[in-house]
C-alpha cells in the first residue's frame, strides 16, 4: 500500500492505496466522487476526464499514486455553491446531452479547452473534444453548448474556470 495525499475539489484527502488503483476508482470508491464515470477499457471515451493540476486527463489512465501531491477537479467541483459553472449552464441551455453518460467528461474537457482558447471556432471545439465520445447527441448540441459557454464566459466575469 502507498500513502497518498490529494486535494480534490478543494478538500484535502489522505489515504492508503494499492499502487494498481486507477485514479478514477479511487475517486469513486474511496472518496465517493461518483460524478466521474468509466466508459471504456481503452482510454478512448473520455467519460472519466478530470482536471489534474488544472489540465484535462483521463482519470482511468492515471494511477492514484501518480496523483499524490496534486490537485484534482471533478465535475462535482465545478459549481460554486448553487451557482453552476458557465459550461454547465450552457450544456443545460443548449440541450448538450441526452443520456448524460458522457457529460461529466465532456464538460471537463470543455473547461480545459476554454481555459486555453477562450474563443474557439467550431472546428477548434470539435478538435478540442476529440478525446470524448458521445453515443447519443451526434455532437451538434455539444458543440453549440461549448460555443455558448465561451460567450457566457467572455460576457460575465469568468468564474470558476481554471
Amino acid at each position, binding site marked *: 500500500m502507498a500513502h497518498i495525499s490529494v486535494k480534490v475539489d478543494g478538500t484535502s484527502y489522505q489515504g492508503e492505496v494499492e499502487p*494498481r488503483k*486507477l485514479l478514477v476508482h479511487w475517486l469513486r470508491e474511496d472518496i465517493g466522487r461518483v460524478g466521474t464515470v468509466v466508459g471504456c477499457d481503452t482510454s478512448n471515451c473520455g467519460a472519466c*476526464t478530470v482536471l489534474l493540476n488544472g489540465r484535462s486527463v483521463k482519470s482511468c489512465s492515471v*494511477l492514484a499514486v*501518480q496523483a499524490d501531491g496534486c490537485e484534482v477537479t471533478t465535475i462535482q467541483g465545478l459549481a460554486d455553491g448553487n451557482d453552476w459553472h458557465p459550461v454547465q449552464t450552457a450544456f443545460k441551455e443548449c440541450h448538450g446531452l441526452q443520456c448524460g453518460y458522457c457529460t461529466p467528461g465532456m464538460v471537463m*474537457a470543455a473547461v480545459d479547452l476554454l481555459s486555453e482558447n477562450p474563443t474557439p471556432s467550431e472546428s477548434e471545439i470539435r*478538435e478540442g473534444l476529440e478525446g470524448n465520445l458521445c453515443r447519443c447527441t451526434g455532437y451538434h448540441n455539444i458543440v453549440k453548448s461549448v460555443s455558448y459557454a465561451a460567450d457566457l464566459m467572455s460576457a460575465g466575469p469568468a468564474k470558476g474556470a481554471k
Partner: protein
Amino acid sequence: MIPVEFDYVKATSIDQALAALKSGGEDSKIISGGQSLLPVLRLRMAEPSVLVDCGGIDEMLGVRDDGDSITIGAATTHHGVMSNSLVQKHALLLAQATATVADPAIRHRGTTGGALAHADPASDIPAAALALDTSFVIAGPGGRRTVAAKDFFLDYFTTAVGPDEILVSFSIPKCDWGSSYSKFNRTAQAWAIVGVAAVVNVQGGVIKEARIGLTNMAPTAVRASTVEAALVGASSPADITAAAMHAADGTRATSDLHAQADYREHLARVITARAVRAASGI
C-alpha cells in the same frame, strides 16, 4: 479492468530509477505518462512486478537550447513539446507531428520520449524523429551512450533502449527547412493508417535536400531514401509527384483491419507528395 498487483517506485533521479529497475529484475518496467502502458495493464496484456515512475525526474523534463541543437527531456509531455517555443522555432516538424497524437487529455499525460521508447509502428513521433536526424541519450548500468536515429528503432516495439536502461533525452539539430506532418486516418483521435513526416530545404524555388520519414509502412518508422534522392532539383508539383511515386520502395507495409498493404503503399505515394508540397510550398 484492473491491472495486476505491482510495486511502485517514484524515482527522483536517473540513478535511483536505474537502481530500482535493477532490483526489480526482469519484470520491472518504466512508466512515464502511462498513456500506452496503462491501457495495456488494464487489458492485462502485461504483468510487471515493479513500475518505476520516471515522470518526475527533473533532468528528463523540459527543452533546452544547446546552440546547434535543442535537447528535449524524454519525460516532457506531448503538450509540453508541441507548445514549446524552441521546438516551434527549431524543430517545427516535431510540434506538427505531436499535435496529431491522440487527443488533448492524452497529450497532457503522454510523453514524447515515452512514444519514442515504446516505438509503436503507428506512432507519429518516430517518423518525425528520423526526418529530423534525432540522436538519443540512453542511461544504463554501464553509464550513458548516444545513439543515432538510424540505429535507434530496431523492430516492432523494440529500440536500442535495453530493459535495464532509460531514455533520458533526445537532441535535434536545429532545422529551419519547411516542414509538414501529413497523417491519414479515418476518425478523430485515431492512429495513422499512414503518416509522412517531411522537412525540405528549398532555395530559389528548387529543392536542394529533403528528409522524409514514414509512419506505419514497416515494423519501424523508416526513411523514404529513394524519394529523398529523387527530390533533389525538383521545382514543380509534377516533379514532386514523380519523386513521391517511390515512397513505397523498400517498405514492408502490413495488412490489418484498417487497411490492406497495397492500399497503404498507394497512400504512402499520395501522402508523401502532399507532405512535400506543403513543406516546400511548391
